[in-house]
């Protein structure tokens, strides 16, 4: 009995926000308080379940745990056995940290949603559906399911940006849709290609096949290897758009600038990480040879991301845009980690994904609070904020320090690991990347100092400081960041076995 319940943990986690959806549907549209309350409460079960999952996870055993399959449908195919698609969920060391992070960030983002004024019912409905989508992405054990949940996040986010965003929300929503739609198309193509190659979309089955030497030999032959290469490129492009990698990043800037802060918390904190997750899950695990051939390019792109993002972040005056470019820069670090293709690199990448998730969630929570009070996020209009709002500024300072990778905070660990990993493989690029860290310090401090200190600007004279309902969530986020920073094993331990397995398979 207990075992069965445990088996059902991932699926329960994924669909637990639906309870809130049902309750919300029953609440009349004009009961704002109720809606907000239910909306926030509904994100608690996933968080609780996620933590339960985390504590139940056997870190030493590694592998896939809490696996569960519920049959869904099967397509009859000629010659080969029918293609069965199931509701197949489970966690391994790669998905666990991300899922937990996603659940926590979602809860806190729901808290940040109290600033939303209009159409609350629709907002929370979509928000909870979005949560289902992102949890599903991380916990699915079947690529078809992965794709479905991936698309759910796309559609729901489209609405969240388009309805509740600021002035240019429609443009942002469109841009988001176009790029991510293209990404999904590539992903779909890659998925079908993968199915043709491996005749299954189960992660475990695909991995098995991908590392079977006979099949590898077969795939390396002349006509087939072109197809394999094509599928690999589709995969990379699909997730590069999501991540976003350098040439595909413009949509993400708009989303950061236009979407409501609570949504950006989710978007920047969780959704971008789906790109990283996908790259590792499908790129690294399924195409070891192609990935190795491609690692140099990936590292180079990562470098561009880091430097380009950092350089542009330095000249931004708008905090949201600044953070958007900072995100670009930080995603470059994830790319570094992945390109390293060794244990420390991959660990660093996942660390960075989780840590950046918390950090950007924190910073956008801050921006939400700030905007609520001052109506602006332009640092030129925010000078001397520390005097009227010391707590808020303190949080901003802490978040900024985390962003620039101060030791003792999560950012440091992840950047360190990622760079360490890449130094083994591509020392030159890694060295160049370090420049990005210097720039990070520069743009972060510039923003924090300009906004927080100095003479008090006109607009913010009468601004109030945060009260506990806002402070508490931010403190939770901050404590997560510091917890990872001082005790990396809390994150590193569960993923260790999985990462090692991946790394050993690709020979890194």
């Amino acid at each position, binding site marked *: 009995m207990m075992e069965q319940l445990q088996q059902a943990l991932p699926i329960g986690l994924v669909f637990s926000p639906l309870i809130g959806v049902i309750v919300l549907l029953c609440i009349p549209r004009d009961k704002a308080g109720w809606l907000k309350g239910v909306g926030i409460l509904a994100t608690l079960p996933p968080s609780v379940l996620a933590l339960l999952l985390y504590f139940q996870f056997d870190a030493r055993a590694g592998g896939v745990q809490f696996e569960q399959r519920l049959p869904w449908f099967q397509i009859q195919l000629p010659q080969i056995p029918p293609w069965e698609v199931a509701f197949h969920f489970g966690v391994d060391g790669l998905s666990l940290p991300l899922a937990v992070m996603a659940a926590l960030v979602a809860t806190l983002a729901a808290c940040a949603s109290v600033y939303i004024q209009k159409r609350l019912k629709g907002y929370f409905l979509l928000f909870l559906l979005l949560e289902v989508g992102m949890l599903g992405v991380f916990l699915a054990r079947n690529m078809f399911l992965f794709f*479905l949940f991936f698309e759910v996040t796309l559609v729901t986010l489209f609405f969240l940006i388009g309805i509740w965003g600021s002035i240019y929300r429609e443009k942002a929503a469109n841009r988001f849709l176009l790029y991510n*739609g293209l990404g999904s198309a590539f992903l779909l193509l890659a998925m079908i290609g993968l199915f043709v190659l491996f005749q299954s979309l189960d992660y475990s089955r695909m991995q098995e096949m991908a590392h079977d030497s006979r099949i590898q030999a077969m795939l390396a032959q002349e006509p087939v290897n072109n197809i394999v290469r094509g599928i690999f490129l589709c995969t990379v492009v699909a997730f590069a758009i999501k991540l976003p990698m350098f040439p595909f990043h413009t949509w993400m800037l708009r989303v950061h600038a236009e979407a409501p802060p609570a949504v950006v918390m989710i978007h920047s904190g969780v959704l971008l990480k789906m790109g990283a997750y996908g790259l590792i899950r499908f790129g690294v695990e399924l195409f070891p040879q192609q990935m190795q051939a491609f690692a140099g390019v990936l590292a180079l792109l990562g470098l561009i991301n880091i430097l380009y993002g950092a350089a542009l972040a330095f000249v931004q005056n708008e905090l949201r845009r600044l953070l958007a470019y900072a995100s670009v820069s930080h995603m470059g670090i994830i790319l570094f980690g992945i390109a390293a293709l060794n244990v420390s690199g991959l660990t660093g990448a996942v660390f960075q994904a989780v840590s950046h998730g918390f950090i950007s969630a924190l910073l956008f929570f801050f921006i939400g609070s700030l905007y609520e009070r001052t109506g602006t996020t332009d640092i030129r209009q925010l000078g001397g904020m520390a005097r009227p709002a010391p707590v808020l500024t303190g949080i901003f300072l802490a978040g900024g320090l985390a962003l620039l990778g101060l030791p003792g905070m999560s950012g440091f660990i992840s950047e360190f690991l990622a760079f360490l990993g890449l130094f083994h493989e591509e020392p030159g690029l890694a060295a160049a990347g370090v420049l990005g860290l210097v720039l990070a310090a520069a743009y972060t401090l510039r923003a924090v100092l300009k906004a927080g200190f100095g003479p008090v600007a006109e607009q913010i004279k009468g601004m109030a400081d945060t009260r506990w309902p806002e402070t508490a969530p931010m403190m939770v986020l901050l404590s997560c960041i510091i917890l990872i920073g001082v005790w990396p094993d809390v994150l590193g331990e569960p993923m260790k076995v999985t990462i090692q397995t991946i790394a050993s398979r690709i020979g890194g």
Partner: protein
Amino acid sequence: MEKYFLDYDWTVMAPELIILAAAALLSVIDLLLKEGGNRRLLGWISLAAVIGAGVVAAQQLGDPAYEILSDTYRVDDFARVFKLILLAGTGLILLGSFREMDREGKEARGEYIYLLLAALLGGMMLTSSADLITLFVGLELLSLASYILAGIRRKRTDSNEAAWKYVVMGGVSSAFILYGMSFVYGLTGTTNLYTAQQRLFEAYNSGYEPFVLLSLFLMLLGFAFKAASAPFHMWAPDVYQGAATPVTSFLAVVSKAAAFSLILRVLLGTYLFLLQAGPWQELVAPALLVIAAASMVIGNTAALRQTRTKRMMAYSSVAHAGYMLVPLAAVAGAMLFESTIYYLIAYLFMTLGAFTVLMVVERETGNEHLASFAGLSRRSPLAAAAMTVFLVSLAGIPITAGFFGKFYILIHAVTAREFWIAAVMLVTTVVSYFYYFGVIRMMYFRPPSDGKKVPIPAGAAVVILISLAGTLLLGFLPQWTLDFLGQMDWMSTLSPVRDTLGQ
């Protein structure tokens, strides 16, 4: 031994006979009823007939293929499934337009109903024909009734013009089909599709290849028109825009489904030998692929520029015709029938749903400009939500019918190793997000012009709900439909029925 009429098992034609009887009965009743009187009764009778025919057709599913009337009429699973699609489409349209036709033209309401049934009958004949003559007669019955339906709002210039364009272009395409058929007859001396296959093969091998191919391509041109696929799609936007919305949805759904049954029947029934003979891979498949790709590209890009929803839906239907042609073009994949029909069913629900919402909106705002949808989420949240699902499905996003249908076709194309058409499908699908989401944007992001509620008539509400259920179920629980389609005996479509006497 020759067989005569009474020797046949006429029950296999029961669905057609029911519809025929209903159409005749309704036209008589309509004449007897007082002018301007209540025509609600006609609607109910027609609906009952469609449902009755559907039940009969459904019961016959899985029976062995049977040929009647000296092998001119063929009832096999292929025909039965298509008939069910046609019946379902017409039934939903009838139900959804109960109120609509009251408004559009009181004087033409009776005509509307029985012309719809006549067109349906034509479509059903089409799907069951094993003979060029019956095929052509069925096709024309469908077409002629559709021409009139397109112009049924006879006081309105746009409706007349739509009908005019439709009748001229339709006539030309019929001429193409007929001209192609004349060559088939000339080379084979028979009008039976399956006998023609063998004799065409002989003719092909004895020096008449150009004529064999000529006949095929002439017919293909005509078929492309009927299915509103490129390069003969030009009529679609005008006709869709000008016709009354229920008629438009009939053209978009039922007419198109019938056209696809026609294409499949003729190409697979008569020209399949080209697959062994060679030119299929060299000529036919590329031609079909080009038609399909062109439809997708033209349909999806032209739809971007439209400001009228019906024109937009017309181009979208051109694009969907392109998607549906892919399985046939990639004939080597083995899920040809299943994937085409799955998509057709999905298309039926989502398009009908979208058109019904469109009708409701048009009814309230008086036009079908994109701007009419502004703020629909406020004026009628449920209609807006349903429309969103339909549009998302048309755009091919999970977990909807449209996604699964496209996915199925993609698998088919990829297993047949037609990668580039798969790529075209995907890219054009992404393009289509723009205009589908353009409507969604209107509904959710823009403020309404006035805050009045949009009333939804009961019939339309039922249709929207059924379509919604269909769209979601086909996307979320595809297994039922897959099983259903898997049980059908598709292979019998490819070969003649050997034993019609059942001895």
